[in-house]
């Protein structure tokens, strides 16, 4: 069930000058609604005159023991910059949980690969954590421009093997995620990915060629986030459908991406 909730900022961790990690909890100790990997929230940025609509942000992680929702945020424009200024104790209004979620593979011995690019790594953390909890052994392949954009590596390491690529070679292998050697070394049955569209398209093509089951999480311009404005469409094989309700997670078989 979707809710509109006022949550309280428990922590704002300035990861570096471009990224922050917000930790939120309920104001009265009630348990956060169930949220699944791949889902997102819509943040109301109340005090930014230039931010009229809510901002969609993925669930980065749910710390069940602490009753915390984590949001990993890249400073892009006024809305995200304002969020980056939130202080412990501030109240933020959210719609949540929104969207569908990644599909858990049937067999826990499936070799699963979670590919994140840039801030698109955000949903991969929670997905990895949940997969591990269910008995999978997730592999993470994280790509970024340079090491400064590789975030939460320690967190990822808690849930599986972490591979990285950077465009400038400052961390892990140099190049794009689709060139990483682990793709040759291991035999993946499932790929989950989120990141810049060109990266996801490359991943999708790779997965298609190798006949690997592949789900991608799309970003899109959203006005509502819960299926009423019809602004966030992806032109899929089933026609124009809403990313915010029928996605953000899509199996590549549904998309018109493969060439």
């Amino acid at each position, binding site marked *: 069930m979707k809710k509109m909730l006022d949550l309280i900022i428990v922590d704002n961790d300035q990861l570096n000058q471009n990224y922050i990690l917000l930790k939120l909890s309920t104001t009265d100790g009630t348990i956060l609604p169930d949220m699944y990997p791949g889902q997102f929230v819509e943040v109301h940025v109340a005090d930014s005159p230039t931010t009229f609509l809510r901002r969609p942000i993925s669930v980065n992680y749910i710390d069940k023991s602490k009753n915390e929702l984590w949001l990993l945020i890249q400073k892009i424009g006024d809305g995200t910059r304002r969020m980056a200024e939130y202080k412990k104790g501030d109240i933020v209004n959210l719609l949540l949980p929104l969207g569908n979620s990644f599909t858990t593979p049937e067999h826990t011995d499936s070799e699963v690969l979670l590919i994140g690019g840039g801030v698109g790594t955000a949903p991969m953390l929670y997905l990895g954590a949940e997969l591990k909890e269910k008995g999978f052994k997730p592999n993470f392949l994280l790509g970024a421009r340079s090491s400064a954009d590789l975030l939460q590596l320690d967190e990822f390491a808690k849930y599986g093997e972490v591979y990285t690529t950077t465009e400038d070679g400052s961390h892990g292998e140099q190049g794009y995620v689709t060139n990483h050697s682990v793709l040759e070394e291991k035999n993946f049955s499932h790929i989950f990915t989120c990141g810049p569209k060109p990266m996801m398209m490359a991943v999708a093509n790779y997965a298609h060629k190798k006949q690997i089951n592949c789900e991608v999480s799309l970003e899109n311009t959203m006005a509502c986030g819960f299926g009423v404005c019809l*602004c966030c469409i992806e032109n899929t094989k089933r026609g*124009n459908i809403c990313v915010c309700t029928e996605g953000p997670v899509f199996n590549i078989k549904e998309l018109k991406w493969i060439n």
Partner: protein
Amino acid sequence: MDKLKINIGNLSLKNPVMTASGTFGYGKEYVDFIDLSQLGGICVKGTTLHDRQGNDYPRMAETPAGMLNAVGLQNKGVDYFVSDIYPEIKDFDTHIIVNVSGSTIEDYAECASRLNHLDKVPGIELNISCPNVKEGGMAFGTSACSAADVVRAVRKVYDKTLIVKLSPNVTDITEIARAAESEGADAVSLINTLLGMAIDINKQKPILSTVTGGLSGPCVKPIALRMVWQTYNAVKIPVIGMGGISSWQDAIEFILAGSSAIQIGTYNFIDPTISIKVLEGIKNYMDQYNIADIKDLVGQLKV
């Protein structure tokens, strides 16, 4: 609660708070957030005779205190509505108004006639003002003559409450309102979106796939309010006011300017519970000023 009751044609609304077409889906998307039975009515998504895929992506641009949309009436057509959606929503304890659009007069009339028999749809809202479709749409709403033609055709085949939704992209909205009235419309609703545009200066391209789109949200409120006031003074049928309502104070402004009922559009995206808050606010205002009947507020602006 009777003090909030209001009539639009034969249609009796339990209160003047409605939600605007294209911003409220089919109502069911909001059941997690609010109790729909509290609403005066719901205008569901624009419906056309045939299935429409709508416009290409991108369809949205944020603007100062508002947004542009270029959805382009994406919907599965009236028959799908009747067979698949109607059964799911017909038992909501509120009035469901179907917003009807078309590219030709015949389309409008045919679409309307297929809704005529639906027990739980007591009225339709004729959208002669959608700026986001190539043919028809707004064109009908920008001339009194073609507006009259559409309304006349639909009136012939549609027996229940007929609301005509007006375009603000005109020199004189009262002309169009009078044309609708004279052809038998039971009410007019206004405003639809204003035609606007936004540009991505890095790509040097329009943000919307359609170049221009429809502007809505608080930014349009002063214009909408003025048009409601002008129209209220020009026609005898009820006026349903909308455009930028984001608080109960805004709703009171529209009622004072002459709105028998109001619709909330874009702000549902920002606060999906806004309609209920607006309703509460109207009630409190009436208590504060000792207003026994909402009808005593409609158009009571002192000028």
